[in-house]
């Protein structure tokens, strides 16, 4: 373990929530509503089941090696060279996911606020803020998250409270018009977001009371499901099922919609603040995992050395592959639903299977 930090089960729970919801609440609703329509507020709850499966697999695997992170014990399970290769693959996955988050954040800021600032400059300062947190260690990230969290949740509830009068219950009727199947299909899209609970593989060793991990994971799945469900429901309630499909960030439009006493207007700023605070923590969690994975793969003693190269790498990937917004949404709605489950569920499950067969690690 390269980071000697310790986090409590509450901190882990809050970290997992922010690591998932910080981007999901902005990007997922639009594409889910496109697929499922007016019942899409149910999808986060159904997707929670797949999240639970991922969590169970990851925890079972992590418990066999309670003092090591995923990329550290891979060579012990698979043998030196295949293990290192898979660790390298996961390093790449974390770097890639970081660059997707990076791209999401800069794209959102670009659309919402700064239309003339170069995206590279935005990505550099956001990245620097995040890797500063990684430099200070997982403990600091977790504490930062404790500060960010109340701001984050409060602003969501303020927005929903302020649009509550515009919610039209008729927008939810008829309920389950085409049966439950489209909802289940649509939840596949959410599942990949929900599967980000696989970060447990990289965070489990830092937990100070290991027996509380199930509690953290289950609370996380429930909280995020409720949050995302409420947000999606509010969007549908206000805009119906047709308009949000054409919106890039429906929740942002929701915040713009608020007008109270002709004075509390244009408080979309709240969304940006909340999103930015959240995304810096989320990025820090992914960067942390990427840095630890990279250091394990390369056999480094100090993971901090990898931070600047990883930052440069994510910015390059983000600019080269997702230079325009279309390729990002294409990735999120067409590639991520397949790519996500593979790295989040299938590979860890196979590794777990091999570990069980070869009797590697302590008993789970």
């Amino acid at each position, binding site marked *: 373990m390269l980071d000697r930090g310790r986090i409590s089960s509450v901190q882990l729970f809050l970290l997992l929530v922010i690591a998932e919801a910080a981007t999901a609440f902005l990007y997922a609703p639009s594409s889910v509503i496109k697929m499922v329509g007016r019942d899409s507020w149910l999808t986060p709850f159904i997707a929670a089941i797949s999240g639970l499966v991922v969590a169970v697999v990851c925890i079972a695997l992590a418990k066999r090696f309670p003092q090591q992170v995923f990329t550290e014990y891979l060579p012990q399970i698979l043998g030196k060279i295949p293990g290192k290769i898979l660790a390298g693959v996961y390093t790449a996955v974390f770097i890639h996911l970081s660059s997707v988050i990076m791209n999401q954040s800069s794209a959102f800021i670009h659309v919402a606020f700064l239309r003339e600032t170069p995206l590279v400059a935005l990505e550099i300062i956001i990245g620097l803020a995040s890797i500063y947190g990684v430099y200070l260690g997982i403990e600091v990230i977790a*504490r930062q998250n404790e*500060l960010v969290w109340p701001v984050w949740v409060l602003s969501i509830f303020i927005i929903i409270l302020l649009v509550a009068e515009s919610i039209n219950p008729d927008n939810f009727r008829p309920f389950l018009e085409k049966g439950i199947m489209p909802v289940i299909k649509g939840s596949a899209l959410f599942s990949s977001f929900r599967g980000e609970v696989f970060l447990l593989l990289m965070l489990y060793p830092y937990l100070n009371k290991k027996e509380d991990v199930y509690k953290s994971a289950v609370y996380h799945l429930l909280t995020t499901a409720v949050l995302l469900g409420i947000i999606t429901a509010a969007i549908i309630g206000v805009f119906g099922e047709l308009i949000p499909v054409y919106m890039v960030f429906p929740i942002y439009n929701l915040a713009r919609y608020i007008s109270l006493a002709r004075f509390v207007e244009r408080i979309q700023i709240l969304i940006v*603040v909340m999103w*930015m605070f959240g995304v810096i923590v989320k990025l820090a969690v992914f960067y942390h995992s990427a840095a630890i994975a990279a250091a394990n793969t390369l056999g480094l003693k100090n993971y901090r050395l990898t931070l600047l190269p990883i930052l440069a790498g994510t910015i390059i990937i983000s600019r080269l592959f997702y230079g325009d917004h279309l390729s990002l949404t294409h990735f999120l709605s067409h590639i991520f639903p397949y790519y996500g489950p593979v790295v989040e569920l299938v590979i860890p499950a196979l590794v777990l299977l091999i570990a069980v067969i070869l009797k590697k690690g302590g008993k789970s």
Partner: protein
Amino acid sequence: MISFFRWLGKFLKHMTAEPTGALLKPGDPGYQEVHTLSSNLDKNIKIITEIFGLCDDLMVRGLKIGRGKKQVRVAVIYLDPLINHTRLQQGLMHCLQTIDHLPSMGVTTEWLINNALSDGRVIEKKSFVEITDEINRGAACLLIEGLDQALLIRLAEKIGRAVEGPVTENVSKGALDAFNEDVRTNIALLRKRLHTTRLAVENLQIGELTKTEVKLVYLKGYVIEGLVDEIKSRVRRIRIDGIVDSGQVEELIQDSAFSLFSLLDSTERPDKLAANLLEGKAGLLFDNTPIAIIIPGTLINQIQSPEDYYQRYWFSSWIRVLRWLALLTALLGPSLWIAIITFHQELLPTELLMTILVTREGVPFPGLVEALIMELSLEVLREAGLRLPQTFGQTISIVGAVVLGQAAVSAGLASPGMVIVVALTAIASFVIPTQPLSNTIRILRFPFMLLAASFGLIGIIVGFSILTYHLCSLRSYGIPFLSPLAPLSFGDLKDTFIRAPIWKMLFRPRLTGYREPQRQNPDQRPHPPSRKGKKFIRRRK
């Protein structure tokens, strides 16, 4: 090449070696012979006067005690300016001169202490180092013919001002005494508030030449475990010629030396120190400095005033919320303004935006330059106000108000909106009750302005994130600087953004007061006498 390294090694060893000219320490060979008194009075006097050398204020008075043939020669040595002359005369000289009968066994120090001297603070010393040290601190040294021991009578005159009110930490309700430059007075002020044998006062000394007295105070059985040893080891590590103010020590013993934040709290109020000791912290009191240090420090402690506990709880809670708002205003005021007028005009309601734009018309600078000019002149003004003799204070306030406010606007160099924002931040920064935090905020304002000018609100958020990351990583003597916010201890939130009623503050803060968690009896809420009139006072549980 190798010889070069050898030479380098020797050179480094030479540079880092202890200075050899220092006096021998107890236990060294030869220490006894060279550095203790002999029984020859004249020789002793000669050595002491030689040690002091060219000291004009060193007084040596020889006299004879007793009557008749058995007279014994003695000498009194002291530093004239330090001595209280009345007490010298009554407590020592008069006593010595009126001794009638010397004991037949010969004069001993014990006999003198018990029968001759009326002043109580007498100690016996043998070594010259200790004797000269005591003389330097204002003791009179009594040397007796034929004895190899000296009596030191502490007759120091109390030099300095009387106990006065606090200068920087003012309250409208609460005690009005503050520490001053005399460490014994400071200890007395503290003891006056903590009448308990648990109050430990340990002496530490810093400075090879100044030999400044530093007192470590804490409550035995309440203080955080290991804290006292850690403080002592850090203070003893200090090797320095002199300490003139507690601020110097603060820099030498705090964690995270490069942080902008002051990780130790300082106060000039004995009530604040006493309250902090009750929460399991420790304090350092210094001679010659009216500021005490509280260890460990937290951010929350620096944004609270002792007055919060003396006012009613709902009012204190309101003031605390207000203080947090003021803190944010002082930190982010100008940068938010820059961000909004440069990047995010759409955030303002249209009418307000029009008003601002009209007043900004004709201002030749971009927002950042305008803000920097105004902020810098404000900083200069503030510093000038601090340094100026009091009689010029009026001048400065007129120059500041007229030139920087009125004239800058009418000359078209600054917009009225900017002047309001700058004034507001200045006032807001005075709301922060402790000086170090206020200074930190003053400095941090500038990077935030630069970030706001380059990236607008996003820059501010990024800057704020970096700031909170930094705050989260800080620790002061093992206690997280941001506790109880992060790591969150939910029970302690009763005393952060709000202040719970005193009868609700059942437990000490979790991280500092864990050795004696309970502060008071539960169920102390005042109740009216019950209607039947039987139970007049609720019984304790």
